[in-house]
């Protein structure tokens, strides 16, 4: 048992178990914590778990005195109404908060009587995304005291075969890494971590735990140049596509760099540092241009250059001289970037088959030239006209992220936050690495038209090295014996068609035999992916479409019990004489990023 300053702790985490089952990248994680109150008075027990932002909570329960109280997923408005009553009684805010860059914190507490125990159980699901050639599963471990029975169990099943599996936990010293057991046999992997009480201790005879940090599992599957893996279970299919052995397609990048006054100091220095490194990493077949803006727009040498050694050397020299001053004219800088690419195409300066992109880095709100965000978005959309991908990197705390996100999504790109921290240059390079190597263009997934329905997105502009495309859908033809999937795309020089055919009954049998699988995973994966894609589409949708999207997201979230930005989980806490209601909401990315906390300020939900 755990002790505190020589005496028994009143509240003891008797057991904590984190069990995850991953099937074809879809992870289903259950966290169970058992807390005992050894005191002879009631105590408040806390259950605090950090889960990935990309995950959806699907279930939560508290078992007290043998009675289980289950959280119920409801439409957000309905939940809020219920919650308002609690708020009017002076209760605190919701149960989930943003916690740092990648995690959300779920926190609940309950009063437990003397010598009683409570069991908390939280379930969440996520589709692991392939990022720079690996799937990453992050489990944040923070029990805050020694735990009698602590256990992490992760079972992975990947029909394509697992190429490698790495486990890393930053709280494990070298001599303790052997506690992590890792087995890998073809399509299955098992990671197990069960430290004893002694192994959890920070030092002999002390009561502090070493378990404080991230337990990270990284793996990839075997791949070749084929149509990928298609799986069919219980009438739903999922198709994973990330072929290997393709030649990269040259790219043309215009870097649009904000050097307004607010960038001065660390941000400008970090930007310069990252740009120098990024330029150095460019392939010699690529082309690039640099635009810097404050309230004026300046173009480095007013054209696009091939990334030859000489040009890159010159550009690096220029980048090192960029300093911060003035206002923020995003509109004219972006329009100028599009014009630069247009002209280069007109002059036949760029390879016929290449990917053209604009990478905007800014830390603030537009306040010079056109400063209305909606009009800037319209202008950029109109001039780019779907020809060029726009990636927006929002640097720091004051950025209007929502504005950047819409601008990126409307132009086949994505937005990303760059957190103001010492590793900001690495974050910038990390993002660049994701889009540095295009492999395929205009990828189209085709399935028999009358045999499937409600497919997730099946057309993609690009596939980048290290990433993966996932398509899922329903099979509506009950007599279908084989599901055929065709992938049509363009490589650097040729047109490519790949074909896969999967025997439906055979596929079902194989997967049903796997002990690792939770039977309906393809259906839940389909629902998860559909919701994620609709949420993204909703960001830049017009009013009417937005309503339809909202209705559909809500319908699916409620049906599959996902806590998404449109639903909440209502948790009723059993207390002695009353039942208090709390809600678990999913925080959205457009919420302001909390500034880091400083001594003297108490900030709970930031890192």
């Amino acid at each position, binding site marked *: 048992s755990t002790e505190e300053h020589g005496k028994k702790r009143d509240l003891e985490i008797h057991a904590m178990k984190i069990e995850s089952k991953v099937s074809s990248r879809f992870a289903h994680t259950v966290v169970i914590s058992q807390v005992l109150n050894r005191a002879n008075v009631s105590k408040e027990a806390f259950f605090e778990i950090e889960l990935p932002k990309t995950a959806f909570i699907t279930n939560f329960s508290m078992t007290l005195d043998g009675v289980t109280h289950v959280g119920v997923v409801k439409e957000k408005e309905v939940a809020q109404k219920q919650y308002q009553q609690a708020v009017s009684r002076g209760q605190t805010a919701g149960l989930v908060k943003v916690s740092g860059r990648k995690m959300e914190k779920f926190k609940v507490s309950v009063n437990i009587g003397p010598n009683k125990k409570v069991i908390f159980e939280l379930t969440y699901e996520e589709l692991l995304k392939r990022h720079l050639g690996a799937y990453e599963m992050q489990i944040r471990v923070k029990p805050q005291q020694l735990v009698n029975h602590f256990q992490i169990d992760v079972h992975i099943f990947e029909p394509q075969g697992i190429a490698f599996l790495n486990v890393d936990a930053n709280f494990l010293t070298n001599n303790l890494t052997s506690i992590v057991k890792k087995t890998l046999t073809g399509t299955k992997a098992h990671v197990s971590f069960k430290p004893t009480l002694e192994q959890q201790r920070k030092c002999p005879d002390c009561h502090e735990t070493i378990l404080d940090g991230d337990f990270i599992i990284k793996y990839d599957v075997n791949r070749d140049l084929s149509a990928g893996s298609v799986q069919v279970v219980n009438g739903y299919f999922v198709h994973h596509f990330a072929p290997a052995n393709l030649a990269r397609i040259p790219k043309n990048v215009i870097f649009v760099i904000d050097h307004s006054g607010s960038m001065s100091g660390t941000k400008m220095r970090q930007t310069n540092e990252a740009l120098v490194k990024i330029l150095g990493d460019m392939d010699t077949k690529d082309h690039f241009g640099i635009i810097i803006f404050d309230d004026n727009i300046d173009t480095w040498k007013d054209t696009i250059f091939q990334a030859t050694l000489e040009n890159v050397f010159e550009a690096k020299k220029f980048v090192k001289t960029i300093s911060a001053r003035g206002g923020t004219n995003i509109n004219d800088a972006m329009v100028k970037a599009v014009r630069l690419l247009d002209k280069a195409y007109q002059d036949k300066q760029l390879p016929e088959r290449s990917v053209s992109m604009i990478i905007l880095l800014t830390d603030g709100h537009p306040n010079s030239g056109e400063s209305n965000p909606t009009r800037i978005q319209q202008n950029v959309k109109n001039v780019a006209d779907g020809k060029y991908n726009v990636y927006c990197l929002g640097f720091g705390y004051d950025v209007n992220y929502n504005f950047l996100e819409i601008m990126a999504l409307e132009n086949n790109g994505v937005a990303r936050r760059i957190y103001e921290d010492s590793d900001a240059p690495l974050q910038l390079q990390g993002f660049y690495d994701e889009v540095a190597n295009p492999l395929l263009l205009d990828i189209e997934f085709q399935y028999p038209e009358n045999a499937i329905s409600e497919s997730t997105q099946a057309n993609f502009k690009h596939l980048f090295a290290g990433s993966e495309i996932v398509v899922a859908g329903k099979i509506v033809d009950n007599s279908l014996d084989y599901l055929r999937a065709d992938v049509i795309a363009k490589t650097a*020089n040729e047109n490519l068609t790949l*074909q896969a055919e999967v025997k439906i009954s055979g596929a079902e049998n194989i997967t049903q035999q796997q002990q690792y699988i939770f039977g309906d995973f393809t259906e839940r994966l389909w629902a998860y992916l559909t919701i994620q894609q609709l949420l993204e589409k909703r960001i830049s949708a017009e009013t009417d479409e937005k309503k339809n999207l909202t209705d559909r997201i809500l319908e699916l979230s409620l049906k599959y019990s996902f806590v998404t930005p449109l639903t909440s989980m209502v948790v009723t806490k059993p207390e002695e004489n009353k039942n208090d209601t709390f809600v678990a909401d999913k925080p959205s990315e457009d919420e302001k990023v909390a500034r880091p906390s400083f001594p003297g300020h108490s900030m709970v939900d930031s890192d």
Partner: protein
Amino acid sequence: PHFIISINDRSDAICFNIDGKPGAILNVVTDPSTDFVVNGELIGEKKIEKNVKMNTYFGKFGIVNNQMDMKVEVSTKMITVFHGEDKIIFPWSSTASLTKESFSISIAKEKNLTLTMGDDATFVIVLHRVWKNHPLHRDFLGFYTLDSHRLSNRTHGLLGQFYREVNAEIYNIRPGLDQGKPDATMIVKGHKLRVTRGYQKDYRLDPKRGTNIPCWFVHYNGKGFIDGIPTDYVVTSLF
């Protein structure tokens, strides 16, 4: 490897073997006019039994279309397409097609590969999979010309020299040394040759059992039927 050549307006066929050493690369087709080349590398059995003549097969083909800056290497393991400095690798386990203007490659998973160059020429490479634990045999490849009418008259190579119509006269059919395998005399390319009636397999339609093609077998590595001798066709590299 064995070769089957249609003669006399496809009414009959001639066949011959080429015995070579494993590792040797033979020129199969060369067309200097279109800058098109097919070379094949020989492989042997997994082990050589004493006093038994060693059979060789094609284990790898290199196809070069210099006009399109395309090269294709087909082995029993994979298919590699080179375009300039770029390289794309397909496993035989995928069903895929790759097209560049009129040039196309279609792979039928674990079966065959069809290479088409517009309406110039079409070739098929058949994959012969052998049980991987077989003590002797290993996977090998077969090469078939479906269409070559647009290749030039200058086309040569072990197969290429026969893309022009071959006229052969067969006469004096008589009992041969083996019962049921008559001998005959054939006049072709100005040579008078003794040939023996036999069968060779065409694996295009049935890659497991093949289809028997009756043909007149030319002895001694096709001596007199092919131009020169087999070593004339040995080249130093696949491309």
